[in-house]
């Protein structure tokens, strides 16, 4: 499990934090397309959230609140999040299709076991 110092970095601006979060979200979306490991996705999402927390901490202390780039970055981030939500929804649909496939499999074999599916990642048996 990732750990991080929750104290904001005094030398960073909120816009920098949001840009870092956006970079993380972009990488998450790219990773989803390439079926990267779950660990990497989770780490990126967690880090993005931490960056946003840091940005909000800085803003709460009114540090660099007049940063003109903040609004631009945050709007861009929200756009990315919408895309990510769609991607995650697609992942959920993938699981749903698995469930549907299982529910509509071709009945049962003569031995009473479930009929075979169209298989992937099948273990190779020789001999």
């Amino acid at each position, binding site marked *: *499990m*990732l*750990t*991080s110092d*929750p104290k904001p970095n005094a030398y960073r601006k*909120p816009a920098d934090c*949001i840009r870092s*979060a956006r970079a993380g*979200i972009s990488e998450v979306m790219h990773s989803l397309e390439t079926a990267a490991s*779950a*660990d990497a*996705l*989770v*780490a990126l*999402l*967690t880090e*993005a*959230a*931490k960056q*946003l*927390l840091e*940005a*909000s*901490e800085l*803003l*709460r202390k009114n540090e660099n*609140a007049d940063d003109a780039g*903040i*609004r631009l970055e*945050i709007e861009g*981030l*929200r756009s990315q*999040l919408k895309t*990510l*939500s769609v991607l*995650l*929804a697609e*992942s*959920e649909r993938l*699981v*749903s299709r*698995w*469930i549907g496939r*299982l*529910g509509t*499999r071709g009945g049962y074999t003569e*031995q*009473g*076991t*479930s009929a*075979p*599916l169209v*298989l*992937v*990642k*099948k*273990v190779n*048996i*020789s*001999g």
Partner: protein
Amino acid sequence: MSDLFSALNSAAGALRAFQTALDVTQNNVSNSQTPGYVTQVPTFDALGFQPTKGLDGGVEGGTGQSTRNQYAELAVRQQVTLLGSSSQLATSLDPIEQVFSVSGTSSISSALDTLFQSFSAWSANTGDVSAQSAVLNAASGVATAFAGSANQLDQIRTSMSTDLQSSVDSINQLADQIQQYNVNRQGATDSDAGLDAQLNNALEQLAQYADTQVLTASDGSITVLLDGQVPLVTGDQVHHLSLGSASNAGATNPTAPANVSILDSKGNDVTQNITDGQLGALLSVRNQILPQLIGGPSDAGELNELASQVASSINNVLTTAGGQQLFTYDTSSAVDAAATMSVASGLQPTDLVAADPGPPPVSNGVPLKLSALANNQNAQLQNMTFDQFYGSTTSWIGNQLSQAQTASTAQTQTVAQAQALRQQLSGVSLDEEATRLMELQRSYQAASRMVTVIDSLSETIINMIQ
């Protein structure tokens, strides 16, 4: 704010755990029809929850847990071994039983009947050349039937040796697969469901050939013993079997084909240890049943005993009356009588002498004595007539085949039952997998809420800069 961090960390861990679980489930569904595969159950390990010590709780994915039931696997293997034994016995005895078929004109039984009928016909017309020719033809038929049967049994014996070699090769190939599994297993930190499936598939195939005992070591590697005594695979070592020939030194019939022996990797004869499975059945037929019929190192063989008794009894009647021998056969080797039996070379119909000099002299005494042989009980044939002895042999082999076929049919059902039981205990249930996928679907929905948290954070920031 630290509470939010904790919540994020817990959610992140949960997402990772659920992803692992999805991988396990996908693999289960993908391998639902893979031989030897059993369900891997995704496990979740609760994390410590002590906020004051910085433990945020949550869940993490554990390693997949196999649902393989070792007792069910053992039960299936035992039944498969018995099926291998009975089915191989039935397969091997079938061509032997056909050699001893009592139907058809080419059988020994029919040929003997024709010969004794020809003797009877000759006794009615001792000077009739056609009757004498019929005797020679019938005698030739008997010799051909004996030699033909012996030749067929010899061919079966040769093919049995080929089958034995094939079985030994198959056992060695499976042993290689199991040894490779051990090598892979010893180098792995976690169990691999795919490797496990391959291993159990190999073990089940191996059980067809011989009775096996499987022991699992602490490092996950397995030891396979044949009949509980002969090591086949121990860790990363494989001990190949080989086919050999037992020595005929000191045997009653040293010229007979030697029995086949199974040698372990050190050259020790372990034939006596292998009594079950296909290999055990093949050894039984090759070293016991066939020698009993056609001869072996310590057994003349019932076919040879019958052939030599028929030939010597008839020759004795003819030569006692001053005539020539009707049959010839190799008298130097008890195991070759049937194969070498033939009508005496150059014998003509008119060479057959019908008159018995007696006392008292009888003009058709020889054919009468010859035809009477059919009903004589022979001490060398367990006090049975020729026909009774042959019938006894035919009946015995028929019973052996019938028992093997019955056992094979019953054992097929038993194996199916054992496999069904195993399937219930440790097979992949697609219904269960569907249920698990639904759970994962909900887990994905929950994990998506992490994105919602980030979205709400971004909204908070927007509100702060307005």
